[in-house]
């Protein structure tokens, strides 16, 4: 890579602009059960790593069999004795209160999220935290309006919900799960991801400070075994899971015959289709946002770029130029575009795919941006010369790796887009309104962004088709997975 000419305005360097708020991360976190922080029964604490420095951040209690059991019992007790009897309006007021307390601690939460997970502060500050707060606020208002939500039916709570969330958006996923569950009158046992429990436990502090009745929300950090215990626990009425398709299938199989309900938000391999008549510069920004948002640790990431042949060269050139300007590094720097990869394990997985891509004959390109010496990092990566059968075009990488394919006709684009067992999201870029509707209708995916990408809102349902899961989170549709409808 030759250095960009100094006259190029894009070559400007930026002075460091670190976010300095102290996130108040404690040295040790315990379980949150029955409204109190409690030591784990087996006495185990897991050491967490700050992915941008590869140093120990703090340690977090590991919930064992007895702890999961306590949490489920606490949730059951809270459900039977308090939460199910509480007038819905009062339930809603608790959620509003949580939203407000959360808002007040927004900056601190953003910093903690970036430190624990590695995501750029710009994203945690402008997206993760405000969206999480908005979810609580949105569902708070539903709590006392359920009688109007379902014509001809009465919505009943399910009971105790076991919720398992991933490491890519720890707080946002917690909010997506907890807020609708509570609004509809359920109680919760939530397991944050193994590598990112810090902000969820800070949320537990907020929940405690909001005086939410003990046991309505319980947090049981831990790894896979903890999640399995929660899924298998007979005291749980419903499982809500966000994570890999493989784990989702295991959950389905495990829950067979138990009568427990479940909703699954699983993997994706979204196509982002750019037509010749698209506004190219906007599309290029959109492609960047689609795949490099949160280092590509996004289940709905636009990881397969489909460009119409006539503009492929232009788009790829512009894309490379734009990627050269992306700033990779310290997640707490406000200028940072691409933060740290969440864990050493995930970095290995991404590297393996990059290697496989090359071995399969695709052509790899990366900018020569500087990479910090310590921590887990991956340069934004493009692959051209990709065919549909390549593993990098078929399997979810969950990293900043984009495959680029071309197409000639809209039909070919749709065929390629749909040629995957996944169906979570997709993107379409064109200036023709009629074409947007034609293409978005034929894409088999739950969320389609036209002339935009990776936009979220609490009022907007999110969830997949096919092997990307079932059920929706957000909006009116997001109430359904948490209620039993009784026909009147």
């Amino acid at each position, binding site marked *: 890579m030759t250095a960009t000419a100094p006259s190029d305005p894009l070559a400007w360097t930026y002075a460091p602009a670190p976010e300095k708020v102290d996130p108040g991360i404690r040295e040790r976190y315990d379980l949150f059960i029955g409204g109190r922080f409690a030591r784990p029964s087996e006495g185990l604490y897991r050491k967490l790593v700050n992915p941008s420095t590869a140093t120990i951040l703090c340690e977090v209690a590991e919930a064992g069999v007895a702890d999961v059991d306590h949490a489920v019992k606490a949730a059951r007790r809270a459900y039977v004795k308090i939460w199910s009897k509480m007038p819905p309006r009062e339930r809603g007021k608790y959620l509003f209160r949580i939203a407000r307390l959360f808002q007040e601690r927004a900056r601190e939460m953003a910093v903690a999220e970036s430190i624990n997970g590695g995501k750029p502060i710009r994203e945690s500050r402008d997206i993760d935290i405000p969206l999480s707060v*908005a979810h609580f606020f949105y569902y708070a208002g539903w709590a006392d309006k359920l009688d109007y939500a*379902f*014509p*001809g*039916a009465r919505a009943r709570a399910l009971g105790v919900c076991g919720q398992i969330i991933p490491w890519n958006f720890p707080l946002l996923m917690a909010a997506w799960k907890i807020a609708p569950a509570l609004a509809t009158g359920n109680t919760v046992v939530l397991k944050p991801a193994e590598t990112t429990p810090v902000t969820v436990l800070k949320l537990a502090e907020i929940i405690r400070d909001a005086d939410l009745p003990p046991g309505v929300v319980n947090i049981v950090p831990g790894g896979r075994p903890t999640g399995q215990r929660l899924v298998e626990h007979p005291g749980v009425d419903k499982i809500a899971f966000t994570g890999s*398709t493989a784990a*989702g*299938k*295991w959950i*389905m*199989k495990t*829950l*067979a*015959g138990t009568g427990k309900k479940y909703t*699954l938000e*699983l993997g994706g391999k979204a196509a982002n289709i750019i037509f010749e008549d698209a506004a190219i510069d906007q599309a290029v920004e959109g492609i960047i946002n689609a795949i490099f948002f949160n280092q590509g640790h996004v289940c709905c990431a636009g990881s397969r770029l489909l460009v119409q042949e006539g503009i492929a060269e232009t788009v790829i050139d512009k894309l490379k130029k734009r990627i050269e300007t992306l700033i990779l590094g310290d997640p707490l720097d406000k200028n940072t575009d691409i933060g740290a990869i969440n864990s050493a394990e995930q970095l290995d997985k991404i590297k393996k795919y990059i290697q496989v891509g090359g071995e399969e004959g695709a052509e790899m390109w990366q900018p020569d941006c500087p990479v910090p010496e310590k921590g887990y990092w991956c340069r934004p990566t493009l692959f051209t010369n990709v065919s549909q059968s390549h593993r990098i075009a078929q399997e979810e990488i969950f990293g900043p790796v984009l495959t680029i394919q071309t197409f000639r006709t809209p039909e070919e684009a749709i065929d390629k887009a749909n040629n995957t*067992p996944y169906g979570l999201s997709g993107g379409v870029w064109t200036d023709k309104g009629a074409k*947007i509707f034609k293409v*978005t*209708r034929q894409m*088999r*995916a*739950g*969320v*389609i*962004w*036209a*002339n*935009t990408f990776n*936009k979220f*809102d609490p*009022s*907007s*349902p*999110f*969830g997949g*088709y*096919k*092997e*990307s*899961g*079932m059920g*929706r989170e957000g*909006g*009116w*549709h997001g109430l*359904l997975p948490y209620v039993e*409808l009784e*026909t009147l």
Partner: protein
Amino acid sequence: MNDRIPVLKTYKLFINGEFPRSESGRTYTVKDSRGRAIANICQSSRKDFRNSVVAARAAQPGWAKRSGYNRGQILYRLGELVEGRREQFISELRQQGSSVTEARKEVNLTIDRLVYFAGWADKFQQLFSTVNPVGSPHFVFSVPEPAGVVALIAPERSGLLGLVSLLSPIILGGNTVVALVSEKRPMSAITFSEVLSAGDVPPGVVNLLTGFRSELLEQISGHMDVNAIVYAGEKPEELVLIQQQASLNVKRVISPKAGSWTSEHALSPYLIMETQEVKTTWHPIGL
């Protein structure tokens, strides 16, 4: 008239708009309450099922593309045709063990149900769609879309009404279906396939198989090109098998509460949504 020998009907499968026998050549005999043979029924094989899925998959996009208005008219037409054949349906139900009163009631309700669901075909979308008041300058809407190919394990006891009550909400929403009909009371379903054929239901939209659950359930629930499975049986061990197999491709498993198909609960439009996906589309608002 009495000296005339009646012409007996051959009951066959209904796949892709045609009436083949099972490719396996197998049949089983259905008996009445006194143990007398009343009909030979095709015993579908796994291959018959796979062929049906191919037909259903091929028919699905075209069926989904039709307007709700059109699908509603087609469902209504089915009601008209059952009305015209009510005597045949009644006598068949009686052969399979129903009393005259029961048979009449079942046929009447079947017709009414087709008419009822016909009316939902161009309305449920409005009821279950949303325009989402997002905080950013985007126009965002969420609409139901068909899940795709649906397998239906039809109710065992209610051979006609149970089948139609579940088939209607599946197909009115643009899905295509492969149904394994009642094992012991399959005749009404096959006669209903003649109605489907005479009506305007395009080939492949509804495929009806007769045969044994014990040998087909595993294949049906494990098939990788089936998007959802509706199980209206009442055997817990069958449901467990289906739920396990469904995990292979994250199939939606719907098991409507066992109950009477004559009750008002069978009319719930929320049933339609069980075989629908919800698609959310975003677009910026700007100049």
